[in-house]
């Protein structure tokens, strides 16, 4: 299954763009996606944290992904 992922902040710099599409074997959870991203882009391992948002909400590792989901990688936030 194809999962489209969006990136912000430092994640955009690491990936070299604001989106990427991954081909993953279903069923695919947030944990699986996280592992794939870490393998593809080892620099994510240097960050303080990596959260995944699914459809504009923080998602826990057990959440299963569908191709229609809006998936966003959230590097450590620094607003304020």
């Amino acid at each position, binding site marked *: 299954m194809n999962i489209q992922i969006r990136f912000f902040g430092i994640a955009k*710099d690491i990936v070299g763009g604001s989106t990427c599409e991954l081909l993953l074997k279903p069923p695919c959870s947030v944990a699986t996606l996280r592992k794939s991203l870490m393998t593809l882009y080892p620099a994510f391992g240097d960050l303080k944290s990596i959260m995944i948002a699914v459809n504009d909400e923080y998602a826990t590792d057990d959440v299963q992904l569908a191709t229609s989901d809006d998936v966003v990688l959230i590097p450590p936030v620094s607003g304020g």
Partner: protein
Amino acid sequence: MVDKLVHISDKVLDVQRIVDLVHSDSAGAIDVFVGTVRNSTKGKKVMRLEFESYDIMAIKEMQKIINQAKIQWPVEKMAIHHRKGILSIGEVAVIIAVSTPHRKASFEACQYAIDTLKETVPIWKKEVFEDGEVWVAAHP
């Protein structure tokens, strides 16, 4: 004129307008936090800040902060406005205003709001120095 309690803007934020938004005749206190752009970090001169926001989710998370504050304190109204884009030294990056019947709750609710915003709201800040740039708090 923006009269939303929760807002992300690429235009200058107006403190008075946000104070007016939370005014309530049954509130005896309004506490306001204004976050501004500092000219240095760890002794290094900062030229400007660049804020990036995941708008839809950031708005949702800011609304959650207000909802949570209302559970914990007798909040009449709370407003959170955040800037995005390029900000110069001294510019206002965030304003939080909260009205409560008495002052103690307004201090506490406002502190809760800014502390939580810094942990949960998907907004990112890049510090631009004379010799480079750094995404704030990205690395341990």
